[in-house]
């Protein structure tokens, strides 16, 4: 029930935004994440953006895994 999915903001009017997820668009509220901007990836839950997704941190996770995979060779 707490599942939230990363979506990309493609349009914004005041506190509503259009987000894209796997080619489908959806309208969500930015009431809980008012600083979000077009182009941002945001975590969406029950029709609200609840947190920003940090691309740099996502990269770090990937890098860590790559490192682990390299070690294994």
């Amino acid at each position, binding site marked *: *029930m*707490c*599942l*939230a999915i*990363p979506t990309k903001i493609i349009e914004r009017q005041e506190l509503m935004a259009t987000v894209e997820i796997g080619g489908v668009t959806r309208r*969500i*509220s930015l*009431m*809980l*994440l*008012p600083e979000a901007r077009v182009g941002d990836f945001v*975590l969406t*839950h*029950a*029709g*609200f953006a*609840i*947190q*920003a*997704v*940090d*691309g740099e*941190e*996502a990269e*770090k*996770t*990937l890098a860590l*895994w790559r490192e*682990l*995979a390299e*070690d*294994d060779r």
Partner: protein
Amino acid sequence: MTGRTTDESRRLAKRLAEEISRLAVRPIRLMEVCGSHTVAIFKAGLRQLLPAQVELVSGPGCPVCVTPNEYLDTAVAYSRQPGVIIATFGDMLRVPGSSSSLAAAKMAGADIRIIYSPLESLDIAAANPTKTVIFLAVGFETTAPTAAATILAAEQAGLANWFALSAHKLVPPALRALLEAGGTRIDGLILPGHVSAVIGEAPYRFLAEEYRMPAVIAGFEPLEILQAVHSLARWLRLGEPRLANQYRRVVKPEGNPVARAVLGRVYGEADAAWRGLGVIPASGLVVRKEYQRFDARRKIPVEPEAAREPDGCRCGEVLRGMISPEACLLFRQACRPENPVGSCMVSAEGACAAWYKYGSGRWQG
């Protein structure tokens, strides 16, 4: 996560599992608190991948599962009142109350609408001015701010026929109650990622500080869960209880301050009843005085039937990690997903349902 092939994932997973096996020199029991983690663990077959001495047990992190019958009975009673429309997330529909579920009430003619966002319930209220719309506000800290924001939006829209029936719950007080009660023999906790996206890290500090319980805020990818298990195994080996945030791409140390402020504006903390855990101090949310005109319980009289828990259902013990679903005599017999006896079999995130569906699942990368 992209950028990895299935082979790479498999290799990584195997490697992590080997490391975990090396680190776990004695049996360890770890609880995944969140129902979404339970599902991810089963889907990926992580239980089969982990060494025998590492046991993963499911916890109380399934909002539908911990909602007591009294709440469902109240919702069903409302749904039978003339002129009432119930707006609810789909998960609540099939949960058995004392004698009826919402799904059964709907079959019998009640107007029950499934919504994806709480905001949709406002549209329903606006489109049906002669009706009373009651939104079933259930969920943890991930969902509660969306309900709070919806109450603010209802106020702004000047809706007089929209109400919330609130049963929101807070995760950290439940963890404290679980550890206080003892008997669960848990050595470490995998903490819910999306609850944490809202509340941040601080509310979990007491785990290590007061209970010497190591804990990791984890993402939902199989590798992230294995990484969490790996860290927990390591700290247990070292005897160093720590709190770590391994889901930094969405969990900021401070959480989401706007969401927390909206939540705090609309709701205050109160004692709340949890299925299986009883009444836990300050573990629930009640609508504050300023917004009481939207509080269904205060504004719309209702007489639910006397709540009764289903005979033989051990959901309460499952939610505390005391037993696995297979220990319940009804599991797979009288209790199945298509005919659930208890709430742990209804929700896709319930431990009984996951156990039933994926019990023999294998690692799929």
